[in-house]
């Protein structure tokens, strides 16, 4: 599979503080790649370097096989979409007028506006002036803007951080549709459930370094202790170890028809992050 992003030994130092240290990873074409880490871990710095908004201190990064330092060409910009913390909207204009501008800049027909507003659940609010929108609605308009031209590569920095669960689900469905159409997605988040539901692979970023990188299910398996929780009809919940000892006990309860449910105790990505880094993902 072709790599769309390749990063080798990337480092970024602000003053005497290292924001990124020896970061290396690849993102395959068509993949949704999750970059997970708490605030200040270097996620936004990485996106800014990969989108040509910030120069790295050392290391190599290529996007579409082009060094990121030469990514300011319009032909490249047409292929990407970017949402970061500094993606602004025109406050005095309506949602429609904001999106119309970007339709013209990206040479996209204006009928696409209805499609993207459907994706972010804002079809009823087209004429609303941006200055009157809530934080969540602003975030959805910004996302709609990034979806307009169906980019080959979409960089999303905490795309659902200000959204309620219903609207987050709308955005996730929209992202899945885009991904199915071929958009590669580079997603930063500290929401583990978002990462689990969207990402093929995830990287854990902590203190500017990648601590782990793999598929969520592989990581969960790797960090699982193989134990299971058995809920019995008398209300007890038993944590049983894996292996023959646990199997014998489970068999005992099953054969006497005492079992209500059996769950494997795989850790969540959040649990794994805490285990690896010693801190919560907030």
């Amino acid at each position: 599979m072709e790599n769309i992003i390749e990063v080798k030994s990337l480092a970024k130092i602000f003053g005497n503080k290292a924001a990124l240290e020896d970061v290396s990873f690849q993102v395959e074409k068509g993949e949704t790649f999750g970059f997970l880490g708490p605030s200040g871990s270097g996620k936004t710095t990485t996106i800014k370097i990969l989108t040509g908004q910030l120069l790295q201190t050392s290391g190599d990064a290529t996007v579409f096989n082009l060094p990121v330092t030469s990514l300011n060409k319009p032909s490249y910009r047409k292929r990407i979409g970017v949402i970061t913390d500094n993606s602004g909207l025109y406050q005095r204009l309506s949602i429609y007028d904001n999106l119309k501008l970007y339709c013209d800049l990206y040479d996209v027909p204006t009928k696409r506006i209805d499609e993207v507003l459907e994706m972010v659940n804002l079809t009823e609010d087209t004429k609303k002036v941006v200055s009157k929108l809530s934080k969540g609605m602003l975030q959805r308009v910004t996302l709609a803007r990034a979806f307009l031209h169906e980019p080959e590569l979409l960089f999303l920095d905490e795309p659902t951080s200000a959204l309620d669960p219903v609207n987050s689900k709308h955005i996730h469905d929209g992202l899945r549709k885009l991904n199915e159409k071929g958009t590669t997605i580079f997603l930063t988040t500290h929401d583990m459930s978002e990462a689990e539901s969207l990402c093929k692979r995830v990287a854990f970023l902590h203190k500017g370094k990648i601590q782990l990188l793999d598929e969520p299910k592989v990581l969960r398996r790797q960090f699982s202790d193989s134990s299971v929780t058995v809920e019995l009809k008398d209300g007890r919940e038993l944590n049983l170890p894996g292996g023959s000892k646990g199997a014998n006990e489970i068999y005992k309860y099953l054969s006497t028809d005492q079992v209500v449910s059996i769950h494997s105790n795989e850790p969540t990505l959040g649990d794994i992050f805490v285990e690896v880094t010693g801190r919560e993902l907030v």
Partner: protein
Amino acid sequence: MTFSMKRVMAIFQKDMKDLYKNMYVSSTILMPLIFAFFYGRMDDLTVEVHFVVINLTLAIVTAFLQCSIIAEEKEKNTLRGLMLSPATIPEILGGKSLVTFILTAITIILCTMLTGYEPTNIGIIAIAIVISSLFYIALGTLMGLISRTVIEASVLILPVMFIFGFGSMFVPFAEQYPILSVIDYLPNIQLVELAAAVEAGSGFGDVLGNLGIIVAWVIIGMIATVIVFKKRELDE
């Protein structure tokens, strides 16, 4: 380097809509008109007085308006959105300058109607004002890019408005203080000299020196603007 008129017009149309709703900026257009109205009530205005109003328009409307438009784009992080779009620097700056240019042209036409200015050679004067407005647009863009906020831009642009809007007031001091002789080369003073020469019967060839100096200011202004714009494409 591509150049898409569609993208230029998209930015222009967006700015027109935005400016229409921005009373703080659009009301500045009234100031030169008020000056022109009062000067227009005086008898026998000299060409220098007519150009006090025109230079004031270039400083207040052209430079200030452009500065505010760019500074607001920076402050609200919308300029970065344009920079990350397929629009090129000429398209972005062209679109953003077109609104200012048109409003400048309208204001100057209204001002000359109010003051009753009828140049001997309207062609030369029009060319000189158009070239001058390009300098003030570049200057406004530069100041807007340097500023972090609209408020900061409003403060930064004040000395610019003072020097270029009222610069002719300092010309008499240039003889007394040689260091001030540099004022003679300012585009606003060159514009007044050119207009006076045209009024005295000079033709296009006679004012090429004045036009050349104004064009040099335009080139310097544009180069500085593009350098700063490119720097602003990157975070520090």
